[in-house]
């Protein structure tokens, strides 16, 4: 992407932590280069626990974690859409809401889940990917949701970057920002034990286990590239607003 002042990135994740975990290095890099980075988190993550918890308490905790993670990456804002975790559906309503945010925020880059990825079990990830892509098609065309256009203008981002992609065609060099990404991910303290047990069951130091996993994934993404750590995307060049 063009990393000049005035570019604006909107990164959309299903749950607090999705964006930090998958694209935190890229967001930190773009923010450092002067882009305005905005995180939209569709659900509150209120079911993201393996032990019974009070959903409201968990939602508040996780949105605070997301705010801390975004601050660490240099993001300007977090916008929660307050859908319920596990119950995000690809509805016309969600796509209409994202269309409104695109027209309000006017991002040059939209980053989200790749809905075409196969065997992507989590329905929220697929639903957010579809709704975010459908909203790109709608936002750039004045014949979609014209009621939004009394005070706003139609808007098309220059590119859509899909993370955890079916097919990789774009890798961002995050070598300089990998520790920043680790710090952002570690803000999600409520998730730490679960991640650590999957990365390294029985690890004495949970944070170190998660850090090791993040570095490994980033090193794998950079395989064959001229840099050490990367984040992988499928990049769709999109029609501009003309």
């Amino acid at each position, binding site marked *: 992407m063009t990393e000049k002042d005035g570019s604006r990135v909107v990164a959309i994740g299903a749950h607090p932590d999705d964006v930090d975990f998958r694209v935190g290095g890229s967001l930190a890099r773009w923010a450092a280069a002067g882009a305005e980075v905005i995180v939209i988190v569709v659900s509150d993550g209120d079911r993201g626990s393996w032990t019974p918890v009070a959903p409201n308490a968990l939602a508040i905790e996780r949105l605070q974690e997301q705010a801390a993670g975004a601050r660490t990456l240099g993001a300007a804002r977090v916008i929660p859409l307050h859908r319920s975790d596990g119950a995000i559906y690809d509805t*016309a309503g969600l796509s209409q809401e994202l269309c409104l945010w695109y027209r309000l925020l006017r991002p040059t880059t939209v980053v989200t889940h790749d809905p*075409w990825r196969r065997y992507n079990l989590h329905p929220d990830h697929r639903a957010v990917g*579809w709704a975010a*892509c*459908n909203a*790109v*098609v*709608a936002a750039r*065309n*004045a*014949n*979609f949701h014209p009621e939004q256009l009394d005070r706003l203008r*139609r808007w098309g981002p220059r590119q859509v970057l899909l993370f955890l992609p*079916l*097919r990789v065609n774009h890798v961002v060099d995050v070598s300089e920002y990998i520790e920043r990404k680790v710090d952002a991910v570690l803000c999600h303290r409520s998730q730490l034990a679960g991640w650590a047990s999957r990365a390294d069951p029985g690890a004495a130091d949970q944070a170190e286990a998660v850090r090791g996993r993040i570095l490994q994934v980033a090193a794998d993404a950079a395989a064959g590239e001229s840099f050490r750590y990367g984040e992988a995307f*499928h990049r*769709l060049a*999109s*029609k501009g607003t*003309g």
Partner: protein
Amino acid sequence: MAELLADTPERVLALAAHTKDADVNAGGLLGQWATSGSRVVLAVLTDSSRGTTRVAQDRAELSLRRAGEQRAAGDILGYAEIRFLGFTDGELDTSERPRRAIANLIRIVRPDVVVTHDPWKAYELIADHRTTGLLACDAVVAARDPLFFPELEAAGLPPWRPRALVFFAPEEPNAWADVGAVLDRKLDAVLCHRTHSLKGQLLGELDDQGVGALRAELQAEHHDESLATYVEGFHVHAL
């Protein structure tokens, strides 16, 4: 698989999300079949009232103009009939109403082959295209099984099973149709869609030079060196 494309089916039903879609992606195959004696019926699922870069377009007027463009293109390619199902552009979904409408159409037309969008095409951004492909699959099942929509049979439309689904612009092509004999007519048909854009250019605003350049570009895209002819690629799924 390729043999199926070389045969001439008696009846063909093409299902497209918008006007232009079938002509651009499968106009050669459909035109070739029509020329060889197939009865080709095209159904356009949506009213095609949104897909434009123009602001404040009168959507009803746009929809009517596009129906006229599609009829002109269909005349060039020899389509026997064009049906406009009228679902709202940009809002197609895989619900029961459009599924029944298409199953109904399959039982009326009794096609040997159904030609449509590949819903599994990766990075196809237009939701109506994905949805049309899924609806075609869903409706083929509902059209062939007697306990789906029994009211259709009660109305005199018994179940019907097409021999194959043919997906255009496919994720994984497994068959190529030789369209060399009809390519010029296909391009004529594509250029009828004057309110649509192709390769970022509004077709109705192209001058003679622009038309020539676009035709040359499309010809080159259709050319297959190993087969030494012009082709369209498909994914053929026998049923």
